[in-house]
C-alpha cells in the first residue's frame, strides 16, 4: 500500500492514540477490579471475624483464650458507638498486600458483642480473651483482642491477678523478666509512674478485694472499673472502653426490666422474693449515668438478696 505522508501520519497517530486509550482503560479497569477484590476480601474477613468470635464467648467458663491466624498480615480498625439502644462495635479490615494502597473494607457493625481492644490491631495472629460481665446478674460475655505486636509486662501485678491470666498462656502477656524493658507496656499496681497504673478503691464489707472497684490511669486518662471490667480497662483503648462500658450498662438496664418482671411472676407462684423494687431502683441508678463505682454496693446487695431468697430470680 502506498500512503501519502499526511494520510499515513493521521491513521498511524489515530491508531496509536486509540491503542494507548484502550490500554490505559484496560490497566485502569484491571486495577479497579483488583482493588474491588481486595475490598471485598477485607469486608469478608471482617464479617468472618464476627462469625469466628461467636463460639469464643466465655459461656460458663471463667475465662477463655483463643487465637485467630491469617495467611497474610492484616490490620483491624476497631471502633465503638453507643447512639442506638445496644450500640455496636465496628470492625474494618485492611489486608496488607504490599501494593501501597490503604483501603479498609466496609466496617462490619457488631451489636451483639462487646469487643475491647486498641484502635488498631495488626499482625498475622490475633489473641482473644473472653470473660463474663456480671452486674450482679450476667449481662454479657466480652472479648479482649490482643495484637501479636503489643506486649504487656505484668511483673508488678499481685498474685491473684497473675494467676487468672497465667493459665491462659497469652503470648503477649509476660509475667517475669520484662520490668523496665521498653518493648513492653508496663502495667503496675504499686508504681504510678508506669504506662498503665491500677489503683484499687474498694474497702467495705462488700469487697472481696481492694481492687473490686478502682481506676486505671493510661494515656493521660482515668478509666473507672468494677471487678469484671478490670482487664478491659487495662488492655483497651480508653474511648473504646468507655463506649463499651456504656453499652454493657445499657444492656444491664434492659435486663433489669426482665428480671423485675420475672421477680413478679415468681411472687405469683408463691416464690416470694423482695427484689422487684430493688431492681427498679437499680435500673434508675444505671439510667442516671451514675459512676460504675457508685453502683457497686447496690449491685452487691442485690446479689446477696437473690442468693438468700427462696427462689432465685437469676
Amino acid at each position, binding site marked *: 500500500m502506498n500512503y501519502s505522508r499526511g494520510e499515513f501520519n493521521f491513521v498511524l497517530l489515530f491508531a496509536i492514540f486509540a491503542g494507548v486509550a*484502550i490500554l490505559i482503560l484496560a490497566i485502569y479497569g484491571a486495577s479497579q477490579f483488583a482493588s474491588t477484590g481486595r475490598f471485598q476480601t477485607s469486608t469478608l474477613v471482617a464479617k468472618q471475624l464476627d*462469625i469466628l468470635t461467636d463460639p469464643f464467648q466465655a459461656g460458663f467458663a471463667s475465662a477463655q483464650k483463643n487465637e485467630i491466624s491469617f495467611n497474610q498480615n492484616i490490620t483491624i480498625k476497631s471502633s465503638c458507638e453507643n447512639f442506638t439502644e445496644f450500640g455496636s462495635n465496628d470492625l474494618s479490615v485492611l489486608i496488607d498486600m504490599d501494593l501501597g494502597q490503604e483501603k479498609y473494607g466496609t466496617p462490619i457493625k457488631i451489636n451483639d458483642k462487646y469487643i475491647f481492644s486498641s484502635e488498631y490491631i495488626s499482625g498475622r495472629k490475633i489473641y482473644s480473651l473472653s470473660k463474663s460481665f456480671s452486674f450482679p446478674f450476667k449481662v454479657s460475655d466480652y472479648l479482649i483482642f490482643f495484637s501479636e505486636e503489643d506486649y504487656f509486662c505484668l511483673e508488678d501485678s499481685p498474685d491473684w491477678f497473675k494467676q487468672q491470666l497465667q493459665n491462659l498462656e497469652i503470648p503477649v502477656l509476660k509475667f517475669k523478666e520484662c520490668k523496665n524493658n521498653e518493648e513492653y507496656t508496663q502495667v503496675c499496681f504499686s508504681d504510678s509512674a508506669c504506662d498503665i497504673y491500677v489503683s484499687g478503691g474498694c474497702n467495705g464489707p462488700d469487697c472481696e478485694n481492694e481492687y473490686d472497684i478502682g481506676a486505671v490511669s493510661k494515656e493521660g486518662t482515668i478509666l473507672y472499673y468494677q471487678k469484671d471490667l478490670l482487664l478491659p480497662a487495662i488492655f483497651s483503648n480508653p474511648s473504646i472502653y468507655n463506649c463499651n462500658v456504656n453499652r454493657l450498662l445499657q444492656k444491664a438496664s434492659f435486663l433489669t426490666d426482665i428480671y423485675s418482671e420475672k421477680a413478679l411472676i415468681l411472687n405469683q407462684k408463691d416464690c416470694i422474693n423482695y427484689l422487684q423494687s430493688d431492681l427498679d431502683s437499680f435500673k434508675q441508678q444505671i439510667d442516671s449515668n451514675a459512676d460504675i463505682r457508685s453502683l457497686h454496693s447496690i449491685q452487691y446487695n442485690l446479689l446477696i438478696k437473690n442468693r438468700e431468697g427462696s427462689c432465685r430470680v437469676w
Partner: protein
Amino acid sequence: MVKKAQYKIMQMAFMIVAVFIFFLMVGIFFFNFQIQNVKESAQIANEQKTIGLISSIANSPEFHCSSSSSLCVDFDKIKILGQEKYYSLYENFWPVSSIEIRIIDSTFNEIVSCKNKNLDNCNYYEVYQENKTDIIKYSSYITLCEKEKINIDKCKLAQLIIGI
C-alpha cells in the same frame, strides 16, 4: 484520496467501537460474576453465623435459665420477651429474622400457639419475627424450664428455631 482516508478512519472507528463493546461485555460478565460471588459469600457467612448463634442465643442472659446447664431456656423469660416492648427493643440486637420455640409434646398433633392463649395448653411460642418471606430456619434441641413452686422446676424438651 480523501474518501479513502475517510473510509479508513471509519473502519478504524468501527473497530474501536467493537473493541470497546467487547471489553464492556467482558466487564459486565465479570461484574455479574463478582456480584454473584459476594451474594453467595454473604449467604454462607449468614448461615455459619446462625448455626453458631443458636447456642449463643440459648445461653444468653435474656433466655438462659438460672441453672448452670448449657442450652437451658427459661420459659418465664420467654413470656416476658414475647411482649411488644421487648420485641421492638431487641429487634435490631439479635442478628436473626426470627426466634421461635417449639415444645416437643406428643399430645399435640398440630402447632398450637401460646400467644394470648392458655400457656399450659400450647406447644409453640414466637419470640420474634421479622416481616420477611424468604426466611431459612435452623433449630437445636433445648431444655425449656420454668419455676413451678419453691424448689420445683418444670422442664420440657423443646426446639429453639432461628431464622435468617
